[in-house]
């Protein structure tokens, strides 16, 4: 039996690496083993429980970055936040452990100084320089969506194309340009509708404001939303999106002042359906109930397209004062409220005990901004490239990115299964009582793996 009174524990044997593992996993494992020998840093007060299980996981992300190593210690009762921060702590004794590779993760058998055996999983911290400011993804007080844990299983969403129906996207941003979803069926600049979808040269989405093929953001909003979904991760600069690798298609229908009309919005829906986008982020709202829009959303539902919608920023109750499109009662519509860094609902966020489906971080969210200042950025005194802003608009792309990641991880899922994975496996927060259905706050890790232990 493990002696809990002893501070720390020793890893004493490194044995056999299973053959046939992928080279990148080997690299990751080597990194992990080096890190283990140098950087074990249990959180204050942590005591490995009797019969604990360690699982060491590695993902592609771990190979490409040089960031910190994270260690999750779990047992049958739940996970223990147990991270090995770079440059902190030390292993108390020389360690030897056994590793085996299973699909998607590296599992290492460990044995402590008393002969207790277990398994350990190692994940990694991305090396993006601003990652520490992304409290919604990882946060010492756990008011986050457990993105780090999820990334041990899946980081790449490129198989699921996500539409950002917004003010466009600055596709020249270094963190977004490689995650722009290009239309392989179209030949750029030949003036022809090569893929016969009704849009000429729609290489990278469409601009419904001007009726052209250039959806570049002239506001700021869409670029920020897109960054939360899929800013390039592990590239050593800036931020990381929930999808470290993504395929984002900007559908611009809001103008440089952030305004648009339903006619263009519905055109964007129809286009999204036509080019087989699977997840749509809708960080906008307004107007009244509209039957044509309802029909368009129903058509998306039939086409198995998930529709994430911001609940609204008026601080009002959507149960009594509906906010559209979030309040359309169609199975594919998920209404999203905003929480802050202590899991309280944001003071501006609309809410609804029966009409708002889930909450996600939406206060002071850091993400990408246009690299050249727009009029609105200048007026508001914003910096270029990266900024923190707040809104249910910022919460919604957390869920959209999560949806894409879940779908990429389990490609056999239907749209409704993806939706249910997000909603049914969310964390429950007492702070959201009476505000959100089931007091749900997004948990990305559990959306990927419902069996992941709860704290």
């Amino acid at each position: 039996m493990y002696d809990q009174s002893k501070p720390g524990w020793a890893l004493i044997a490194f044995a056999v690496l299973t053959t046939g593992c992928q080279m990148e996993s080997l690299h990751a494992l080597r990194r992990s083993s080096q890190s283990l020998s140098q950087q074990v840093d249990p959180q204050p007060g942590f005591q490995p429980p009797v019969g604990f299980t360690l699982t060491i996981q590695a993902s592609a992300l771990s190979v490409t970055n040089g960031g910190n190593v994270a260690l999750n210690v779990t047992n049958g009762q739940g996970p223990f936040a147990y991270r090995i921060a770079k440059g902190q702590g030390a292993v108390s004794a020389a360690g030897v452990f056994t590793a085996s590779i299973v699909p998607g993760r590296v599992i290492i058998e460990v044995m402590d100084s008393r002969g207790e055996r277990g398994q350990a999983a190692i994940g990694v911290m991305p090396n993006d320089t601003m990652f520490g400011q992304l409290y919604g993804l990882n946060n010492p007080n756990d008011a986050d969506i457990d993105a780090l844990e999820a990334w041990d299983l899946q980081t790449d969403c490129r198989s699921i194309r996500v539409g950002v129906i917004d003010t466009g996207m600055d596709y020249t941003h270094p963190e977004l340009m490689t995650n722009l979803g290009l239309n392989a069926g179209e030949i750029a600049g030949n003036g022809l509708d090569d893929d016969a979808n009704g849009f000429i040269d729609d290489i990278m989405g469409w601009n419904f404001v001007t009726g052209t093929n250039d959806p570049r953001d002239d506001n700021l909003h869409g670029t920020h939303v897109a960054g939360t979904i899929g800013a390039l991760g592990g590239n050593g600069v800036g931020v990381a999106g929930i999808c470290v690798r993504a395929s984002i298609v900007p559908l611009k229908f809001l103008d440089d002042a952030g305004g648009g009309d339903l006619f263009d919005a519905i055109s964007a829906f129809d286009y999204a359906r036509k080019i087989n986008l699977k997840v749509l982020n809708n960080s906008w709202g307004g107007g009244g109930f509209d039957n044509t829009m309802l029909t368009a959303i129903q058509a998306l539902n039939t086409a198995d397209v998930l529709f994430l919608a911001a609940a609204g920023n008026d601080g009002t109750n959507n149960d009594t004062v509906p906010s559209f499109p979030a309040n359309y009662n169609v199975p594919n519509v998920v209404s999203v409220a905003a929480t802050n860094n202590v899991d309280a609902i944001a003071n501006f966020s609309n809410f609804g005990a029966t009409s708002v489906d889930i909450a996600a971080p939406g206060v002071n969210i850091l993400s990408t901004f246009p690299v050249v200042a727009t009029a609105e950025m200048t007026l508001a005194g914003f910096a270029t490239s990266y900024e923190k802003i707040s809104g249910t608009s910022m919460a919604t792309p957390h869920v959209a990115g999560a949806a894409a990641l879940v779908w990429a991880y389990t490609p056999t899922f239907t749209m409704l299964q993806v939706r249910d994975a997000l909603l049914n496996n969310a964390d429950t927060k007492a702070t959201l009582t009476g505000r959100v259905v089931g007091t749900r706050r997004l948990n990305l890790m559990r959306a990927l793996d419902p069996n992941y232990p709860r704290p």
Partner: protein
Amino acid sequence: MKYRNPKRILIVAVLALVCAGIGAWWGFNHRGSMVAENLGPVDLVAYGTRLAPTAAAPVPQRAPASIPASQSASPAGEDSAPQKMVLSGQKRLQNLVDRGQILRAEDSKPSSDGSFQRVRILRTSFKYPMVRVIENFEIDQATGREFSRGAVAMVADHVAVKLVPGFTFAQLQNLVRSSGGEIRAQSPNGDRFLIGFSGGENPQALEDMIERLGRSTIISDPAPDYLVFAN
């Protein structure tokens, strides 16, 4: 003639300039938020109701004061950092209104509790410049002051319609012409249209056009083209 100390005059003048500057700066930076306080939640009045709220189109209610949106739910230690750039759709709409030119404004007859509806037609910087804003007001019984319960905006001089399958574009053109309108835009799918008309500065013109087009069997769902905003 009394002697005045020029140094003192200079100091007073500088102080006055500084105060004026601070005032101007404050006014500029708080313009949106001050105006926005006058706007409440989005009004979801079903279109087609006239200028008085009906049972089918209730005046939206704010959340009960006993459960404010965040304060009661926020545990100690809530993020106290200022929230940058929280723009609701209502604030963006207010910005559009503030920068627009009011062409017409019309208030409904107040109901027994004093609530009323204001319809304004504005020329704005929006893609379709003529915008119709419907805003609900209530009267604070204590102070007698009117306050907004929210607004909804739409393009004032066109109607969105769908062409019923089986009918042709030519038939639609005939209908539109006979209704005194013109086809302003066609959706990429080809099944939806914006029907523009003149006289949009009349607060009732949009409803009249919808009613007229609604009698036709070759189109369906004639409706306002609502304005929406990033939030």
